[in-house]
């Protein structure tokens, strides 16, 4: 197949409203996904990630906007799009009454592939995903990790050049997550384009070359994972004080150290810092000089929550638009 378009996926100003415009799931999202890499859509529940993936994979029609996938118009040539994509949704959509092999065969036949080819391909994929032993067992008996792998394998039956993965590792144990990451990395090495949604910064960081951060249906930041992290700062300093009053005083003293987010909750102050140990040492010196005592200190890697706090002023799990911003300084980041 000859493709003249540079991008595997291009979306322009996608809007999706529900309930006659009462609720806006997507408020004008544009994307350009280069071929042969993982593109990450990062955001909390309710941010519009899933809606975006559903629209691009022809499952859902948008209210307005335009998009092409593999050079085909998503809304006018949806059948051509469907032949170019694989889709693995959030809930590992496998038929529990069928065996792993039967699930693969069903999806292959519904992709309009030759029966013999489908059966051979099913065996190969099951083998490469470590499911050969379970191939003839009903998927009802599969573990969560096995279901995800089967779901992904089924999405690959027709060897699609573009793959949509909606939160592929949500709810998985660390080992299964690791296995799935390896599989995705191998796919990309062999030329597949992957659009991945995730709630985990770690996952986006590990897999995605480029990232878009969604919040309430809008893109609030985009860039490479390194760019986003650089904007964010590398470390979060968590200080526990002996009283909320101390915490407020302490926050006032140390806030000059970093231009990033500072968040007070009870006796705990969290601050994203730029320079790791030296910024932390600076904070401790200042607190010591003012005579405020600490009852705890932790340094940790920034999480999605920190990204959100930094970009939006509210935490990832807070979906409501009215978020208290008292005690928080926020900064809009753009790249």
């Amino acid at each position, binding site marked *: 197949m000859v493709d003249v378009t540079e991008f595997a996926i291009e979306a322009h100003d996608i809007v999706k409203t529900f309930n006659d415009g009462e609720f806006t799931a997507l408020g004008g999202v544009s994307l350009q996904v280069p071929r042969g890499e993982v593109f990450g859509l990062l955001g909390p529940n309710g941010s519009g990630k899933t809606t975006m993936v559903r629209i691009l994979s022809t499952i859902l029609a948008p209210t307005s906007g335009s998009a092409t996938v593999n050079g085909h118009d998503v809304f006018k040539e949806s059948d051509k799009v469907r032949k170019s*994509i694989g*889709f693995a*949704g959030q809930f590992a959509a496998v*038929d*529990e*009454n*069928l065996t792993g092999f039967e699930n693969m065969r069903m999806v292959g036949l*519904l992709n309009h*592939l030759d029966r013999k080819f489908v059966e051979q391909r099913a065996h190969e994929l099951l083998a490469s995903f470590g499911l050969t032993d379970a191939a003839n067992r009903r998927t009802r008996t599969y573990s969560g990790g096995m279901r995800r792998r089967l779901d992904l394998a089924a999405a690959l039956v027709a*060897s699609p050049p573009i793959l949509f993965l909606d939160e592929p590792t949500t709810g998985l144990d660390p080992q299964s997550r690791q296995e799935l990451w390896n599989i995705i990395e191998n796919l990309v090495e062999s030329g597949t384009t992957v659009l991945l949604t995730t709630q985990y910064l770690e996952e986006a960081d590990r897999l995605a070359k480029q990232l878009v951060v969604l919040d309430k249906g809008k893109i609030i930041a985009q860039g490479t994972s390194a760019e986003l992290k650089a904007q964010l700062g590398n470390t979060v300093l968590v200080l526990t004080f002996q009283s909320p009053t101390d915490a407020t005083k302490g926050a006032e003293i140390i806030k000059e150290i970093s231009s990033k987010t500072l968040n007070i909750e009870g006796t705990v102050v969290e601050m994203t810092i730029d320079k790791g140990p030296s910024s932390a040492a600076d904070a401790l010196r200042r607190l010591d000089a003012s005579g405020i005592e600490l009852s705890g200190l932790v340094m940790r890697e920034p999480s999605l929550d920190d990204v959100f706090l930094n970009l939006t002023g509210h935490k990832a799990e807070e979906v409501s638009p009215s978020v208290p911003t008292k005690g928080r300084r926020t900064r809009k980041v753009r790249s």
Partner: protein
Amino acid sequence: MTMTTPVSTRSAFRWAISDVLVLARRNLIALLRTPVALVFSIIQPIMFVVLFRYVFGGAIHTGTNYVNYLIPGILVQTTIFGSVSTAIGLAEDLQKGLIERFRALPMARMAVLAGRTISDLSRNILVLVVITSVGFLVGFRPGGGIVAYVQASLLMLSFAYALSWGFAFIGLAAPTSEAAQAMTFPLIFPITFASAIFVPVQTMPTWLQGFATNQPVSVTAEAVRGLMLGTPHGSTSYVSLLWALGAVVILGPLAVRKFRQAIK
């Protein structure tokens, strides 16, 4: 991992048929692998047979041998109840994300609905055979002949198949499969009980008789009974077929439309 994928050259129409068969087969496999569900769907009509034949039957006067009145009615009721499983099956597929997956595949759009209604039709045929046999065991002796018996069976299967498109709509509108089942109950209950399935409508109060006589389930029951027993049944078999046709024409597009909007 990538390799050349053989794209078949069959026409769109033949692929649509293939899609329907793949999905109908998948539903039937599920049915055979959950025998408990199948057994329960057969036990319920058997209980109705026993209840009306031996418990209520003595008090119901139809002017004929009641068992011959009863069994055709129970068969109609059973096939209608059977078509409810279309709602439950689709609601389950929707809930488990399977319909979402199907919609991202290059398959025929109507195949999910057609595959489901066809597998439910097959299931109805099986239940029909079982309940007919149970009927014979409890003394059912139809006198209409084998051809009329087959015609009667086809008539009620067509009627139930038409209704299953309405239940497809409900299944796609329901939030869960349990809700789908609950939503069908208030529809199914009045049309099967305020009908000529168990008792002659003449025994009902006058305000109910108009509805009970003319509603499609009664019409179908009268036609099936007439055909099976070889008794006069007027134009009821044609009217029943018209109802079935009308239901498919109206409910079919509604279900397809709902299918398009089902995922949010």
